């Protein structure tokens, strides 16, 4: 059986991420033409995902802009969920295409975006529309956006299986210049999902009635709707010796009972004329969804049951270091400037109510064996690398 516990989640999350993707906000001026080629690699918790992401942006007559992005994930997964289900490591590939249009008229920018993501058992489509308006001497920018998404969930072991998800997202943001050196923004977003919100491969576990040191797996049952609200406050400050410090806080709640806080603090330091260094720290914490439990006492103990660790109580801390080198190619008249970038992030996940069930899968004579429900809490670290080239033309 090809196990793809995390897979559908990735697709769903990228679809959702695109729903909530930041609007390309401009202040009476469209951003410059550019092309970026990124190589990304995530490695942690038994999962390796890598691939390219390529973006091209071009504007015309300072009024219209078009952008296109191709993104790919090549996944090799032997995550804890794969191992607990008894499946073997699987490989998967996901392709995603996006197309965007912008129209600038006076101080208003209108944008349209379409994204399509496909893999062998999951398709997602998202369309979004946004408006951003500069007011008050260009000190204030208001933006609003609306997205609709439609996913088709499949199951590679059952060709007849096909379920849908509909999602909508509404977002509003205000960006305000507070002083000559300080800008802040407030963003709100409401996202609604409706449909088959499970992962068709994922299971919850309950105590084995025949032997309470062991557990039995059964397919998760999720509610058919989810509405979430997020509000975030961010700021960026220019330090007098030419550096920038930025930070933000996001508050999140949803109808599944999850409450999450995200804190971020970063520092950008340019050196000489060509180098820029960045460091950032991010702290995230959430409490579990109402219907989540690491282990249930019996099968169908409640209406909805989940064991997705992304819905558990956990926190994560991430540290980034990054370097950018800017260059001006003299032999390529087509290219105005370019940059080489390397970012490294280290993320540590620490779960408070998700246990490492592999310990109760060991033979009971093994000294490391732990009865189900008393295994050590799971934690893991991940390395994320991004290497990319950008050119402006």
């Amino acid at each position, binding site marked *: 059986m090809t196990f793809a516990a995390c897979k559908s989640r990735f697709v769903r999350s990228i679809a959702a991420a695109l729903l909530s993707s930041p609007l390309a906000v401009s202040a009476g*001026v469209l951003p*410059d033409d550019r092309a970026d080629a990124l190589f990304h690699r995530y490695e942690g918790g038994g999962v390796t995902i890598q691939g390219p992401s390529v973006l091209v942006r071009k504007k015309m007559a*300072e009024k219209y802009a078009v952008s296109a992005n191709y993104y790919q994930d090549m996944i090799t997964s032997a995550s804890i969920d794969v191992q607990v289900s008894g499946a073997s490591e699987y490989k998967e590939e996901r392709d995603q295409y996006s197309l965007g249009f912008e129209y600038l008229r006076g101080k208003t920018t209108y944008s349209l975006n379409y994204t399509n993501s496909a893999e062998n058992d999951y398709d997602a489509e998202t369309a979004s529309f946004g408006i951003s308006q500069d007011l008050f*001497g260009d000190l204030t920018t208001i933006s609003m956006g609306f997205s609709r998404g439609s996913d088709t969930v499949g199951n590679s072991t059952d060709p007849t299986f096909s379920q849908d998800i509909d999602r909508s997202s509404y977002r509003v943001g205000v960006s305000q210049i507070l002083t000559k050196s300080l800008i802040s923004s407030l963003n709100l977003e409401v996202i609604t999902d409706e449909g088959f919100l499970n992962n068709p491969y994922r299971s919850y576990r309950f105590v084995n009635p025949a032997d309470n040191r062991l557990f039995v797996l059964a397919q998760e049952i999720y509610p058919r709707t989810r509405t979430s609200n997020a509000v975030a406050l961010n700021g960026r400050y220019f330090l007098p010796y030419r550096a920038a410090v930025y930070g933000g806080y996001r508050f999140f709640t949803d109808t599944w009972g999850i409450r999450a806080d995200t804190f971020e603090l970063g520092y950008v330091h340019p050196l000489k004329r060509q180098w820029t260094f960045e460091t950032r720290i991010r702290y995230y914490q959430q409490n579990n969804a109402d219907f989540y439990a690491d282990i249930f006492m019996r099968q169908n103990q409640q209406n909805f049951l989940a064991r997705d660790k992304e819905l558990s109580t956990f926190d994560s801390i991430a540290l980034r270091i990054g370097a950018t080198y800017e260059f001006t190619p003299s032999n390529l008249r087509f290219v105005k400037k370019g940059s080489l970038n390397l970012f490294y992030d280290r993320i540590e996940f620490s779960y408070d109510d998700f246990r490492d069930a592999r310990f109760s899968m060991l033979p009971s004579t093994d000294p490391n064996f732990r009865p189900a429900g008393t295994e050590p809490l799971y934690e893991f670290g991940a390395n994320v690398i991004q290497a990319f080239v950008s050119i402006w033309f």
Partner: protein
Amino acid sequence: MSLGKWIRVAGLCGALAVSSLVGASTPMAPSFTLPSRGGDTVSLEQLKGKVVMLNFWASWCGPCRTEMPLLEQMHKRYSSLGFTLLGVNVEADTRDAERWLQETPVSFPVLFDRDSKVSKLYDVSAMPSTVFIDRKGNIRYLHKGYKPGDEGEYLNQIRALLKE
């Protein structure tokens, strides 16, 4: 102050009051003196009798940078006919502007308004801002911002003002 001076002041105030009631469309361009990139100082008073185009710009402003080569062409073409272009750089720290001008040189005078005195005087409310001043020293046209194609309008206005 002597009586004569009082009468002149009263007369001037009266004239100002009347002109402000009658014609806000052709206000006097406020005079100023600023240091130029060449090292000397330039004052607007010296240029009475010429058509003057004041362009408020900064090296960090994209549309300003796009506009500059076109302004250079205009200055070259019409400076012998009694037209002059003054580039008023509004940056407090002029190093970036100097660096940019080395890469993209211009022949018209570039003045440094480091403490924003002239920007405030002319109530600059957009970047870039272009002010056309006629031979008599009145502000005739004001352009806020720059979009490709605006230079056509500039040329028409320069020609119209030169004919006067």
